[in-house]
């Protein structure tokens, strides 16, 4: 269990983390989301006391990070896969990490095997791809067999197989009762692996709950209707206050009404329906909806043509 309370961090005049508080429970993967510049990485660094917070505390199973004698046994963290000396081999990187917490050398070989880097363990890290560095970073996280795992953008640079592998690893770790907190911009990945969600914007907590609740609460819902006589439904649907988005001659997306009402309206007019399916927006839709007001950086519209 991670308990973050009233965490505040300022860089000069900029308030990066603003009285942030949340809990991460064991047994499930918890996604940590926020737009660029929202303070996710700073929060993670403050949790590990790498950045000095102005106020607030973070407790790992009730203990402050600085009070952990050999933290790799309790907290495995990967903040950036690039935090490796490029002239050192992958194995030697893990060896100093293991030695610092009294872990045996054989554990290094075990985690190298686990992440699939045994064959390149003796090569200098500067020859590694970003995906290989991510695997090396994850090996470092797993060294101490920790009860809590914290990862910042672990899927960056991974190929589809690697992304799937990391998803499987994290869900497996959570299923063993560990606490897993993972930040990512790949919302489809979070939707697949996370059960719980923490969403922040401009350093403040915007939402905390399950992914399902979050999507249910914030994502747009509509009904997809497909029928050869679909235009016969236009007037009754508009009388019920529904809005219609025409997809093609036989397909509409109907908002402001539910599938039961639409089905009854169709039946009353003997309109044949090929499809009547409720649709819900994605986690991405819900995320963009919630963080719209908390975007630090906004993109301009791209017009077609030069």
């Amino acid at each position, binding site marked *: 269990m991670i308990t973050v309370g009233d965490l505040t961090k300022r860089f000069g005049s900029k308030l990066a983390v603003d009285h942030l508080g949340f809990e991460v429970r064991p047994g499930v993967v918890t996604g940590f989301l926020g737009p660029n510049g929202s303070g996710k990485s700073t929060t993670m660094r403050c949790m590990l006391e790498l950045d*000095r917070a102005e106020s607030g505390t973070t407790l790992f199973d009730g203990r402050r990070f600085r009070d952990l004698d050999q933290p790799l046994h309790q907290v495995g963290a990967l903040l950036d896969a690039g*935090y490796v000396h490029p002239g050192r081999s992958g194995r030697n990187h893990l060896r100093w990490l293991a030695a610092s917490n009294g872990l045996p050398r054989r554990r290094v070989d075990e985690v190298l095997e686990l992440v699939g880097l045994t064959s390149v363990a003796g090569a200098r890290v500067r020859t590694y791809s970003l995906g290989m560095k991510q695997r090396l970073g994850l090996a470092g996280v797993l060294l101490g067999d920790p009860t809590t795992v914290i990862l910042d953008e672990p899927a960056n640079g991974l190929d589809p197989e690697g992304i799937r592998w990391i998803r499987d690893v994290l869900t497996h770790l959570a299923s063993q009762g560990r606490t897993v907190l993972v930040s990512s911009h790949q919302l489809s990945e979070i939707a697949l692996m996370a059960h719980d969600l923490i969403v922040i914007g401009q350093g403040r907590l915007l939402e905390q709950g399950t992914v399902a609740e979050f999507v249910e609460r914030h994502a747009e819902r509509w009904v997809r209707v497909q029928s050869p006589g679909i235009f016969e439904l236009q007037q009754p649907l508009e009388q019920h206050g529904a809005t219609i988005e025409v997809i093609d001659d036989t397909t509409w997306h109907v908002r402001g009404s539910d599938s039961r009402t639409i089905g009854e309206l169709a039946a009353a007019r003997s309109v044949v329906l090929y499809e009547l399916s409720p649709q819900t927006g994605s986690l991405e839709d819900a995320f963009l909806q919630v963080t719209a007001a908390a975007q630090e950086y906004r993109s301009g519209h791209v017009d077609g043509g030069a």
Partner: protein
Amino acid sequence: MINLLRAEWIKLRTVRMNWVLGNIAIVFPLVVTLLTAYFRGDDTGFNGLNTQDLVSTLTGTTVVCSLLCGVIAAAAITSEFGFGTIRPTFAATPRRLRVLVAKGVVTLLTTTAIGATVIAIGWFGGSSIARSRGASIELSTVDTAVPAMVGAIVLVAVMSLAGYGLGLLMRSTPAAVATLIVWPLIAEGLIGGLLGLITGKKNLSSWMPFQAGLRMVFVDRFAEGPSRLAGGAVFAGVALLLVALGSLAVSRRDA
């Protein structure tokens, strides 16, 4: 602490640049000293090699060794900031001072061993070569020879402490290395000369940290300025102050 010492030793010895610098630090003074012993060892005239000359050559070239050891020590910490490995380091050991002490101890012991190796091989090799060429080399004939050679080893150790301290304070390899090289070779002379002009005292520059430290390696006796012991104490005091201030800064700042 043993775990941390092991971790820092693995870090130090698994970077190729440290081996390159360490080897140059050993080979350069030895090559100069042994070649001097060989080529001047058979000259019995005015340029003939005596014990004082041999020790002076050895301790004088060890100054270069000390500068390189200072660079190794500075890079031991600045590379952690440069490559970001300071974060996994502190995430693995949140008590930062323990990490900094372990790194300082490992670096200090390694560089001191380099200095001791240079002096031991330089003296025994150089004196053997010179004697085989006909020179009369006897340690007992120069009472300042042993203090100068011990002083050279201490200079290497103190220089590495100074490099480590600068690295802790500056966090940047180019800045720390440039300061380490420019300060003793240029800045001290300029500042000492300027202070001498202002105060009218000629020997102020000999009290500047590196110049004072250099007193440890000289075979000659000095009528003015700090003694061997006082000079070493001044330089060691400044180096320890740099390490203390740097450790304090690293402990308080964001990693």
